[in-house]
């Protein structure tokens, strides 16, 4: 039965202390959308907005949704390699 399922879109979904990063695993364009949460909410609440419906048409390479910035949320991606380098910043 699973063999009949067609994947619509695949994501790498990472939850950091102060940040949620959703990266489509395919897509020809390279854009980053930085989405800032509203008062009283956190990034995880908003993630679903980008993972269903028309949002799936967005050809983004990276989508960062931020929690409150009371800590340094940057260290995890500081060494992220340039796009197209063939490296994964996770490695």
């Amino acid at each position: 039965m699973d063999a009949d399922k067609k994947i619509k879109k695949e994501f790498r979904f990472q939850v950091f202390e102060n940040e949620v990063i959703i990266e489509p695993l395919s897509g020809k364009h390279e854009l980053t959308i930085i989405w800032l949460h509203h008062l009283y909410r956190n990034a995880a609440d908003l993630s679903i907005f980008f993972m269903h419906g028309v949002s799936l048409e967005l050809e983004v390479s990276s989508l960062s949704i931020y929690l409150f910035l009371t800590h340094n949320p940057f260290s995890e991606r500081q060494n992220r390699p340039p796009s197209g380098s063939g490296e994964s910043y996770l490695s």
Partner: protein
Amino acid sequence: MRVISADNNQKLVPSWFDVMRRSFDRPHEEIINAKDLKESSADIQKIIDREVKFLNGDGRKVFLGGFAQGSAMALTAGLESKEKLGGIFAVHGYYLSLTEINEANKETPVLVLLGKKPPFRPWDKPDGFYPMFEKTFEGLKTIKSVNTMVEVVDQDVYYNQEFIQKKLVQFVKSSSKL
């Protein structure tokens, strides 16, 4: 995390800046904590820098967006950015006159969506917040060359995700010429 003064309790909540009053009847520096705003703007600039580096130095591939306080923050951080951005998408939010617009983003496309239909939460005003929010953009719209479109829509922008998604996709595609 910070306490929101206007809420009259000591609860720490996720926020970009403290809010002292929930109205715009005074200068903005008396309504929100300007220091918080500037600190958050500087933090977001670091994120923008990181992403621009990732995108081989092209800031026009970076879009900044948000909802309510997040949209006010996106407008400030985006317009203050030294990197020329692809666009700023603000939903159900307001513009803070404390924003110091950087020359690099004077012509950056900005789309603001305000909903006429209130989201029917207990604390909402009968007409929703849009008239109050819309007024905050008057100054911004008078600045020559600022490419800001404020669209008041007959929608509940709080719960109508499908509508917002469509607008976002249209905005990103038209601004980035995909």
